[in-house]
């Protein structure tokens, strides 16, 4: 057991592991599995109280489906940009990587901006965290999602800075891939939220 007689890794990515898989990638997938349970619990909380809201307004009173569809579309397209960023760095194209990373971050900011405007308008119409269980469960769920998106944007911008400094190369494409996994997860959570919270009528 003490004899991990591997040659010293010639590259930072070439760790020898008992699974044959990169440990950071395993960690990210394990985290995403746990985050499924996290968002699942928040979605369940929203569903359990759905239709039992007391008082007005409740979430369905204030939703603007066309508006939210646009922000959902922006997040979907950010996933496309993310995977194109990964494809670029896997080809060794750092310039395109930077362009696509900025695109992803930009679309993410469009989404967050849309959320901020939406939440502000909901507040103006009288729906906030304390209005009723609908407001509480809605804002906690979408608030946590928005936080995830915001952290993702910060991560992507940090990758952009690193790429600008020449520290993201084809050999380090796993750094972008792991960030991409997180970003796509944030997108698929919104796919579920958009359908379950916004579209499916009470």
């Amino acid at each position, binding site marked *: 057991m003490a004899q991990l007689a591997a040659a010293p890794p010639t590259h930072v990515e070439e760790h020898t592991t008992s699974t044959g898989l990169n440990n950071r990638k395993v960690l990210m*997938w394990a985290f995403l599995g746990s985050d499924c349970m996290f968002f699942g619990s928040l979605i369940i909380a929203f569903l359990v109280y759905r239709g039992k809201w007391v008082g007005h307004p409740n979430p369905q009173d204030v939703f603007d489906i066309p508006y939210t569809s646009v922000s959902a579309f922006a997040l*979907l397209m950010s996933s496309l940009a993310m995977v194109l960023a990964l494809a670029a760095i896997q080809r060794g194209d750092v310039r395109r990587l930077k362009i696509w990373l900025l695109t992803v971050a930009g679309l993410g900011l469009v989404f967050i901006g849309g959320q901020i405007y939406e939440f502000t308008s909901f507040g103006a119409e009288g729906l906030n965290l304390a209005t009723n269980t609908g407001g509480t469960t809605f804002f906690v769920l979408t608030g946590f999602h928005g936080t995830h998106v915001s952290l993702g944007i910060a991560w992507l911008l940090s990758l952009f800075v690193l790429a600008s400094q020449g520290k993201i190369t084809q050999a380090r494409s796993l750094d972008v891939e792991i960030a991409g996994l997180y970003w796509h997860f944030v997108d698929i959570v919104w796919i579920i939220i958009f359908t379950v919270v916004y579209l*499916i009528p009470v």
Partner: protein
Amino acid sequence: MSAHAVPHTVEHHPGAKEYIAIGTALTVITALEVTVYYVHAVRPVLPPILIALSALKFALVVMFYMHLKFDNRMFTGMFLFGLATAAFTAIAFLALFGFVRVAGA
């Protein structure tokens, strides 16, 4: 314990054209979801239609954008474990609160 190098587990990467095709499909499905929302004739069956469409989008992103289709099965297992736990918990709570009828309950 013998050490071994990290194998190249990814057998195939889709190219930009495939990614754009999937992005187009995701856009079309989203447009379909929103359109169906406004069609009053399908209101009685709207929830299963929307769930099916969003499940399709979910699968496309997970399988192709997250490369789960082409990657090691261990990643699939990790992700599906969390997803399945969340799904079963959801069913249990919805049954507990009377939204879902469980056989024998």
